[in-house]
């Protein structure tokens, strides 16, 4: 047990407590950024002018007619930008563009006394466009060789050798969709200027420091003139890691120009049409298995649909490459990655950050190949698990692979899989029009930012004279329970009751230079920093207590508001009294904490190293029922065992697992982004741009039986109080839903049927899979969206397309960090 991971007696971490703001949530008292508008005087409202073309040049922009609209105060254009006209860190995202790159691209913004005035003003702005041809699909981009950014390659061994020694070689292709974040709270910023000309921006942002930096560079001022605060977010999921910056900069710019507070809140349609989403991917692959179904080689080319600018596409792609192995040992690997440039929103971070896309490829391969190998898919998966001593294709040793096996065996046992499989077999034999299936899939997910520099965090902890404690840290709260965990960490480290600790909103003037609350790392990093700050205070207080109690400071213990010496009959002093005593002895009662994750290294140009502190593991088994008439399905039962280390906060962690699973199931089955791919005037328009057309899971998608438990004996030495990150990994447990649907569709056909299933597996897609299994449909009838691409077996299996020799590599970390005006856009 390490100093970082060891828990004292009676720790507050590990207690099952509700979200720290639950009482505020349920009573409507919890404040989000837009709730502050009514509490702020003289607010102006912003509304964008959105371009109707996927690709065009703005040849003229006439704001004058907007000023004729009653209540319009100001039209913001590129001419107003005193600093850098860019919303990102890559300098490829003009804040006020002259080149329209996607339908809905905002070309200017109107400020009005009311939202209605701003809306009408925006409608009055006249814009002339010179329209150009656009690339909408990833296949079009591949054909046109329209790529952007690096084209990394992850390679180990010799793929040709591996394929040559394989008994079975299969190749195939798949294209799968992205996902809209659909955080319930859309993007919002409220900016104002104080008496000194300093900007105070409240923003719904996962990355306040970068929001601050972008505001500063747009305004052409140093960072110390800008403060960003995030009270909380109504959901983030990665969608507020990069996307808030430009919007906050617009609000800040408007505020500096008018001297009034400016509110910029996107409505749902604006949010969906303007901001980035999970990347859809295209993948070509060739895989080899030995006679027993053991993976020998994988050769794959992954193309991420990056949208119009880079944003976080490079690190997303890197994580996809680093997760194509998921839980499986593959001796010879070659994976090429590239990023298509399409005229769509600039795709960005989304829970899993490329990991889900990489893992989908291998899980799809195994699901499709199992029947060809004559193996049960569960057996095929289990047989290929990593074992002790093996390492990933990027060279990191897989630590604790036995935990995956334990989780798997536990799910098999507690989920009563053998009995239920027999029941399913009997059910299917007696039901012609309805079939059930049960699939079990694993998750192995690397924890830490791929880009090593981001693995640092800060905290600021105050102990006031009355013994009450106030903590600040660099992480943001988006519902994931980070603040709850941080309160528990502080109470544990200081040995005080939880109610003595309060947490103040995240602000860049309290803790500077923070990393995004992302990569599941919030609790690991900020927890380390909070713990460090608390330990500094505790050590100082131990000196005071030791003196007062007449013992060595090392023999002082802090426990539930009492400070005592070792031993049952030891002397003790109340926390409050000790704090007061320390104050009068002029002992510093606050501290700044810092944490850096030790032991990480990563060479992004070679795609080799040990970028992850540890792996989070999980296993899910899902049973579904498919209606053969319609393809509609229900999720009957889900059993999950997931590894969160020693949980900091079990109720929070269970919530993350369940919520992540359902969100993943939404991505894989229901959520259906449809872009207009026609050649008509609306080409490139997102057809699903509202809640009525883009459907996320509702109560009807909740598994009817949902059993989630935490892996036991899961202590993690490398993280705060033995815990593990939990935000992203559970999303990928949802592959069990997709694989169960595949197997249920196959059950409509003869034994050994291999089924290609589109993603998302909507009822329509499942229906076509069922028809395919029945051997009844003519391929030409199946619409392109509902079909999965085919597969080839044996020696004829084609190799995936290989990038040209001069394809750009990922730049090394050091260059990425020093590039541009800020250290951003890594991960």
């Amino acid at each position, binding site marked *: 047990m390490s100093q970082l991971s060891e828990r004292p007696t009676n720790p507050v971490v590990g207690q099952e407590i509700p979200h720290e703001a639950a009482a505020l949530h349920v009573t409507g008292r*919890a404040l989000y950024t837009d709730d502050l508008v009514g509490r702020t005087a003289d607010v102006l409202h912003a509304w964008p002018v959105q371009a109707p073309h996927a690709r065009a040049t703005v040849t003229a922009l006439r704001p004058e007619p907007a000023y004729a609209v009653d209540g319009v105060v100001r039209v913001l254009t590129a001419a107003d930008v005193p600093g850098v006209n860019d919303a990102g860190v890559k300098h490829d995202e003009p804040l006020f563009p002259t080149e329209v790159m996607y339908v809905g691209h905002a070309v200017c913004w109107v400020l009005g006394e009311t939202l209605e005035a701003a809306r009408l003003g925006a409608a009055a702005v006249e814009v002339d466009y010179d329209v150009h041809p656009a690339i909408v699909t990833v296949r079009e981009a591949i054909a046109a060789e329209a790529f952007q950014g690096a084209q990394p390659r992850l390679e180990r061994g010799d793929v040709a050798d591996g394929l040559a020694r394989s008994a079975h070689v299969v190749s195939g292709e798949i294209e799968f969709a992205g996902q809209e974040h659909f955080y*319930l*709270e859309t993007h919002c910023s409220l900016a104002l200027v104080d008496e000194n000309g300093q900007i105070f921006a409240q923003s719904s942002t996962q990355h306040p420091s970068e929001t601050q930096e972008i505001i500063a560079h747009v305004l052409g001022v140093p960072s110390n003139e800008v403060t960003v605060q995030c009270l909380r977010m109504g959901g983030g999921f990665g969608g507020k890691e990069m996307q808030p910056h430009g919007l906050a900069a617009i609000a800040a710019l408007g505020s500096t120009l008018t001297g009034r507070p400016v509110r910029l809140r996107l409505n749902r349609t604006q949010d969906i049409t303007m901001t980035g989403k999970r990347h859809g991917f295209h993948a070509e692959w060739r895989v080899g298995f030995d006679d027993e179904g053991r993976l020998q080689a994988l050769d794959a080319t992954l193309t991420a649909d990056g949208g119009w600018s880079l944003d976080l596409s490079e690190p997303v792609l890197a994580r996809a490459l680093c997760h194509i192995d998921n839980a499986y040992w593959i001796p010879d690997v070659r994976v090429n990655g590239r990023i298509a440039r399409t005229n769509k929103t600039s795709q960005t971070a989304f829970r899993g950050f490329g990991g889900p896309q990489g893992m989908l490829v291998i899980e799809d391969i195994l699901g499709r190949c199992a029947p060809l190998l004559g193996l049960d898919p569960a057996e095929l998966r289990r047989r290929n698990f990593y074992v002790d001593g093996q390492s990933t294709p990027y060279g990191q040793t897989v630590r604790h692979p036995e935990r995956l096996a334990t989780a798997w065996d536990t799910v098999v046992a507690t989920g009563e899989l053998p009995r239920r499989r027999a029941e399913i077999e009997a059910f299917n034999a007696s039901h012609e*029009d309805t079939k059930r299936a049960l699939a079990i899939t694993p998750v192995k997910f690397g924890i830490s930012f791929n880009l090593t520099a981001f693995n640092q965090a800060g905290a600021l902890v105050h102990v006031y004279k009355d013994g009450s404690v106030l903590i600040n840290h660099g992480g943001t709260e988006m519902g994931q329970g980070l603040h709850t965990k941080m309160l528990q960490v502080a109470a544990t480290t200081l040995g005080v009751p939880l109610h003595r600790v309060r947490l103040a909103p995240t602000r860049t003037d309290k803790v500077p230079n923070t990393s995004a609350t992302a990569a599941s790392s919030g609790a690991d990093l900020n927890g380390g920093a909070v713990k460090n700050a608390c330990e500094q205070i505790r050590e100082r207080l131990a000196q005071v207590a030791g003196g007062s109690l007449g013992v060595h400071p090392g023999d002082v213990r802090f426990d539930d508001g009492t400070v005592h010496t070792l031993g049952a009959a030891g002397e003790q002093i109340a926390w409050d009294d000790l704090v007061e005593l320390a104050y009068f002895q002029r002992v510093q009662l606050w501290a700044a904490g810092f944490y850096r994750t030790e032991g990480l290294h990563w060479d992004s140009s070679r795609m080799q190293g040990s970028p992850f502190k540890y792996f989070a593991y999980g296993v899910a088994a899902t049973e579904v029922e498919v209606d053969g008439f*319609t393809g509609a399905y229900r999720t009957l039962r889900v059993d999950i065992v997931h590894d969160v280390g020693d949980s900091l906060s079990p109720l929070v962690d269970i919530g993350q697992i369940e*919520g992540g699973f359902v969100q993943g199931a939404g991505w894989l089955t229901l959520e259906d982004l449809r872009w207009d791919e026609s050649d008509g005037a609306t080409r490139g328009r997102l057809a699903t741009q509202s809640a*009525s057309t883009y459907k996320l899971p509702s109560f009807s998608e909740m598994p009817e039986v949902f059993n989630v438990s935490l892996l036991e004996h899961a202590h993690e030495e490398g993280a705060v109080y033995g815990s593990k990150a939990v935000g992203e990994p559970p999303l990928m447990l949802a592959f069990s839903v997709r694989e169960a649907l595949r197997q249920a569709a196959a059950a409509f056909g003869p034994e050994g049927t291999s089924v290609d299933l589109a993603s998302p597996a909507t009822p329509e897609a499942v229906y076509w899979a069922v028809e395919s299994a029945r051997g009844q449909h003519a391929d030409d009838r199946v619409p392109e969206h509902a079909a999965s691409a085919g597969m080839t077996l044996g020696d004829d299996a084609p190799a995936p397309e290989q990038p040209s020799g001069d394809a750009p590599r990922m730049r090394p970390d050091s260059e990425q960090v020093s590039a541009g005006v800020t250290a951003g856009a890594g991960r």
Partner: protein
Amino acid sequence: MASSTTAPTPSVTVNGERFGLDDVPAWTTALDLIRSRGLTGAKEGCAEGECGACSILVARPDIGTGGTGGTPEGTTWTAVNACLVPAASLDGQEVVTAEGLGTPSQLHPVQRELAVRGGSQCGYCTPGFACSMAAEYYRPGRCSGAAGHEEAPTATESELGAAHEHGPNGFDLHALSGNLCRCTGYRPIRDAAYALGEPSESDVLAARRGQPAPAAVATRVSGPSGGYARAADLADVFALMAEHPGAVLVAGSTDWGVEVNLRGVRAPQVIGIDRVEELRGLEVGDASIEIGAALTLSEVESRLAGRVPLLGQVFPQFASRLIRNGATIGGNLGTGSPIGDLPPALLALEAGVVLASPRGEREVPLADYFTGYRQTVRAADEVIRAVRVPVPLASISAFHKIAKRRFDDISSVAVGFAVTVEDGTVRRARIGLGGVAATPIRARATEAALEGRAWTKEVVREAAAVMRREGTPLDDHRASAVYRSTMLGTALLKLHTQHATQEEVGA
């Protein structure tokens, strides 16, 4: 009904506090109003009634369960989407928001269960969930698990997994079908709902149910950006229509609110008709059942109490409870949408549309009512007063909705079946289709292929092939044309599979 002695200043009572409405533009939603007065618990998540983050409670007349008439004496706390309801339409009404249910130190039972069970993560959807859940908490007769919102016959019940959608405390999960949560995966919210007990003796909102709901007020709000007028009675509707040609008639505002919010439509005049008594009758006669056009679908569902099994199958699949608490049959027909869920069912039921005007009343068969995309035979001076469903009903009826999501989605294809099988022969077949043409249509070729023939798998297969060719479906983001066509055929096959016993009876 309303008296003409309207308070001079329109106002709504929210959590016991009066908010004036006279300086509010007519298109302002209830959500914007209450948020502007500092009650920011209700949120805008989608502005089209899909997410429920804006759910609030409104005191509505209690129409009881299973009754077909009578004077309401009590109050039902009814959850609605505040983002869709015009603020002016709440003149004289009582509203409770999440802030009014409880405080952090004195949580309401639904709030307590949500909080301690992990029912909130980011918390943004939570106040809306609390209100929707509170409405079901206070639903009369909930614990008995009886009546009210029971679903259609058992054949579809197992299919809908209905057994999993009611708690041991009688809580109907459909009460939350219009609320979306992106964080939790719903399990803890369900557990919170199913853990609720009965309201205590001292619960003021429970006690409020024993008193009459506020009467409707003959509201007149007008300003430079348009006016809102609530009609006192049918004559007042006609007078207002004559006074404001082109005025928009609005009942639950579940469609109009979307126009206002998402498409920025601003009407010079809106006429509220949702509390007009002449439009709110429900009469069970010997030849037909007449259903008032301005009854909410929740009211129709409750008052029909399963008398029309086909409609009983539609209601749980029609949008969400939040929407059904506002939406009306008149509205669903009035918009003329080709993808409304009621027309296919009403077409199968051979319903007639009763159109009223100062010139008198006429009944038009629904099959003749639609004339084109969002166009109908309704004249400019006419109001949909009711629909009439002829009785006796067919022996077999079913509503098949094909959509991506089982709760609260718009149909790709909707099919209403009303088939009478006697002695193994199809005596009568009426099939209504939605989503396959510019208007809802009857599947007349399929009906002809069935009628007079044996109710056998072979005949049904032949008829299914005919049915696949009905209509002219399109490709769109909901479904492909070929899937839509295919689903028409499989719907008939599925119907037969589920009702094959009729074949045995006759054989």
